C-alpha cells in the first residue's frame, strides 16, 4: 500500500512540476545524512507559539538569535513554531532527531512525555526540556526561578495600587503558575498587607482574545492593576485602554505597550543556552536539572516605567539584594495558606521539591485551584 500511495503522490508532484510556471529549479534532497565533524552542530528549537507573541516564545527566540550570533558557524539552528502539545509534538521532535539534529530544545511543559519518548530512540541526541520534571541520560530539564522577580514585581504593584485590588490573568492551575501568583502576592503584601490578588484562569497559554477578556473581566470587577501569566501582551493592552496599570511577564512588555506597564518579570534564556550549548560543543554535556534564579541572570526584572517612584525602586533593589545574597528566599516563613493555616512556619523555607509541586494559594489570593 505504501508504494501505491507514494507513486500516486509522485505522479501528482511530477504533473504539478510540469504545469508550474517556475519549472527548472532543482529539487533538494531531504538532508538525512549525519553531519561530519567539520559541519556545524545542528540545533532545533520547538516552540509552542509564534515568536511574534512578544511573550514566552518571543523570549526563547530572542535567546536563539543571541546564541546563533555568539557561536557563529559552529552551530546551525532551526526552529518550528506553534507545535501543539500532545501526540503531534512527538512526531515533530522525531523528525528533527532523524534529520541529524544533535541538540533539541523543547520549550513547553506539554512536550515532556514526547521528549522522553523520542529521546529513548535517539540516545546520541541531547534533549533539553523546559519546565518539566522528567529526565533521562540524554534528557535535561531547565527552568528559572521566575517566582523571584515576580516577588519583586509584587512589591511594585503593592505600592502602586490605589484600591488594593489587583487582577491576575493566569494560564493553567499548575505549580509553576500557582508559585508565581503566590510569590507576587507575598511581594505585594510585604509592603501593603491589605492587598487582594484576584485570579482568573484562562486555561490557555496562547489565546490573545481570551486573555484580553479575562483582563477586562477583572477590570470590570474593580482591579486597578493587572498582572499576568500568559504568553501575550493582551492583558497589558486591556489595562492600558482602561487607563489602568499593569505588570507584564515574559518579555519587557513596557516596550511594546507603554508606560502603563510598571515593570515585567522577564526571561533571559541566553544565560542558560550559551552555557549548555558550549558544553555540548565541548563534549562535556551531561544530563542535569537546571533551575537558575536572579543571581544566575536567567530571570530578571525589566526596566521600570517612569511612573514608578524612586522609593519603590529602592525597596525592590533591597529585596533583590536579599534574594541574590542567598540569605533569604521568597518562600521562607512565616507564610499562611489561603485558608489562614500555617503553610511555612517561621524560620523555615520551602524545599525545591515543595516549590515544584506547589498546589495551594497563600493568604491574600482570591480564587480557587481545582483539586483532586
Amino acid at each position, binding site marked *: 500500500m505504501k508504494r501505491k500511495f*507514494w507513486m500516486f503522490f509522485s505522479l501528482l508532484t511530477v504533473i*504539478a512540476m510540469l504545469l*508550474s510556471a517556475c519549472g527548472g529549479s532543482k529539487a533538494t534532497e*531531504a538532508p538525512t545524512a549525519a553531519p561530519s565533524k567539520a559541519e556545524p552542530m545542528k540545533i532545533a528549537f520547538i516552540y509552542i507559539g509564534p515568536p511574534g507573541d512578544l511573550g514566552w516564545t518571543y523570549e526563547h527566540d530572542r535567546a536563539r538569535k543571541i546564541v546563533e550570533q555568539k557561536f557563529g558557524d559552529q552551530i546551525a539552528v532551526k526552529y518550528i513554531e506553534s507545535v501543539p502539545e500532545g501526540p503531534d509534538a512527538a*512526531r515533530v521532535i522525531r*523528525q528533527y532527531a532523524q534529520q541529524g539534529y544533535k541538540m533539541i530544545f523543547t520549550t513547553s511543559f506539554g512536550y515532556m512525555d514526547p521528549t522522553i519518548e523520542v529521546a529513548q530512540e535517539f540516545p546520541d541526541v541531547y534533549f533539553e526540556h523546559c519546565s518539566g520534571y522528567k529526565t533521562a541520560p540524554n534528557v535535561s530539564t531547565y527552568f528559572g526561578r521566575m517566582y523571584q522577580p515576580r516577588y519583586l514585581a509584587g512589591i511594585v504593584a503593592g505600592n502602586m495600587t490605589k484600591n488594593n485590588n489587583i487582577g491576575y490573568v493566569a494560564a493553567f492551575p*499548575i505549580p509553576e503558575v500557582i508559585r508565581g501568583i503566590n510569590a507576587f502576592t507575598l511581594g505585594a503584601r510585604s509592603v501593603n498587607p491589605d492587598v487582594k490578588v484576584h485570579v482568573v484562569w484562562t486555561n490557555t497559554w496562547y489565546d490573545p482574545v481570551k486573555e484580553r477578556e479575562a483582563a477586562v473581566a477583572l477590570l470590570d470587577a474593580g482591579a486597578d492593576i493587572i498582572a499576568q501569566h500568559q504568553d501575550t501582551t493582551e492583558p497589558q493592552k486591556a489595562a492600558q485602554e482602561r487607563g489602568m496599570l499593569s505588570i507584564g511577564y515574559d518579555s519587557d512588555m513596557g516596550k511594546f505597550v507603554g508606560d502603563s506597564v510598571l515593570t515585567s518579570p522577564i526571561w533571559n534564556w541566553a544565560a542558560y543556552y550559551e552555557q549548555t550549548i558550549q558544553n555540548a560543543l565541548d563534549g562535556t554535556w551531561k544530563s542535569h536539572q537546571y533551575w537558575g534564579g536572579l543571581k544566575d541572570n536567567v530571570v530578571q526584572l525589566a526596566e521600570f516605567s517612569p511612573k514608578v517612584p524612586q522609593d519603590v525602586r529602592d525597596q525592590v533593589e533591597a529585596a533583590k539584594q536579599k534574594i541574590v545574597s542567598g540569605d533569604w528566599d521568597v518562600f521562607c516563613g512565616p507564610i499562611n495558606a489561603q485558608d489562614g493555616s500555617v503553610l511555612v512556619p517561621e524560620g523555615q523555607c520551602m524545599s525545591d521539591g515543595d516549590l515544584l509541586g506547589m498546589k495551594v494559594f497563600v493568604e491574600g489570593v482570591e480564587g480557587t485551584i481545582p483539586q483532586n
Partner: protein
Amino acid sequence: MRIVFEKRESISHWAVVLVPIISFLVSLLFGAILLLASGVDPLVTYQAMAVGTFGSWHSFTETLVKATPLLFTSLGVAIAFRMKFWNIGAEGQLVWGGVAAAWVALFWSKSLPGWTLLPLALLMACVAGAIWAGVPAALKAYLNVDETLTTLMLNYVAILYAKNLYYGPWRDPEGMGFPGSAQFPAAAWLPRITGRVHLGLIIALIFAFLLWFAFNRTRWGFETRIIGENQTAARYLGINIKRNIVIALLISGALSGLAGAGETLGIAHRLQQGLSMGYGYTAIIISWMSQLNPLAIIFVAVLMASLLVGGDQIQIMMGLPASVGVVLQGMILIPMLAGGLFTEYRLRIVRTPKIEEAKA
C-alpha cells in the same frame, strides 16, 4: 447572458475520477502562488511535503497515525450525513470515547483481569460516543430540535468536562500537580503494529468495509439512503424514520468514540491535553470530499492526514511560519471541495434572448 448550475442527469464514472485529480492540481497551483509570494520555491516545498509524508517508512507510519482518528470520525460523520442529519459533534463524541476508555483503563485495572481491560475500554468508548450522539438524535427525531446546534454545542461540554477531569479529580497524584491523568497500565494499551500505528487502524479499516457493505447491500443501507434523499418517499414506503435516525446516530457516535479510545489507549496512554485536535471537524471535510463513500473515505483520510503531517515540513525544511502552512492547507482544500460540485452539477452559459437586448 448568465451562468447557471445544472444538475447532471447522470454522473459519469470519468467525472468521479477526473474531477478530484483536476481539483487537486488546481489546488497545487493555488498553493504555488502562495508559496511564491512567501519567497520559496513551490516545487521544493511540495517535494519536501511529499517526502515528509510518504518519503520513508517512518514518515508514512506517522501519516497513518494521523489518519486513524480521521478515518473513524469521517465514517461516523458519513453515516449521519447520509440521512442529512448534520452531526457536527464528532469532536465531542471523540472526546467522550477517550474519557470512557480512560475511565476503564485507570479505575478498573485492579478489579478486572488484564485481558478484559482493552475490549471493555473500547466497548465503553463506543457506548459513551453513542450516548453523546444519541441525545441530539432523539431530540431531533422526537422533538424536531435542530441537530446542527445541539451536536455543536455538546462538543464544548465534552471538551471542557474532559479538561476538568485531568486538571481535577483524575489528575495524576504522582504528577506533582501537573495536568494529565496517570499513565494507563500496559494491559490497557492498544497493541502497536509498526511505529506508532496501533490496532485502531485495523479496526477502522474493518469498519470502513463493513459500512460500505451495509450502505450498499443491506436493507438498513437502503432505508437510510431513502430517508436522506426523500423523507416523504421514505414515509410512504413505511420506513420508520425516527428509529432509523436514532440507530444511525448511535453507530455514528460509537465510531467517533473509538477514535477517542484510539488516541488515548493507542498513542498517549493517558488522558491529557491534545485529545481534541479538531479531528471531528476535519472529518466533515473528508466525508464530504469522499461523497460519503466509506471506501473513498479511507483514501481521502490518508490524503488529509498527509496534508496535516506535511504541513510540518513547511516550517522544518522551508523555514516558513506555521501560519503559511495552515493557509496552504486551506488553499489546497477549497478547490477540492469546490470540485465536488462539478461532479454533480454542470456549468452552463445561458444566452439571454435578443428581444430583451433590443428593449434595453
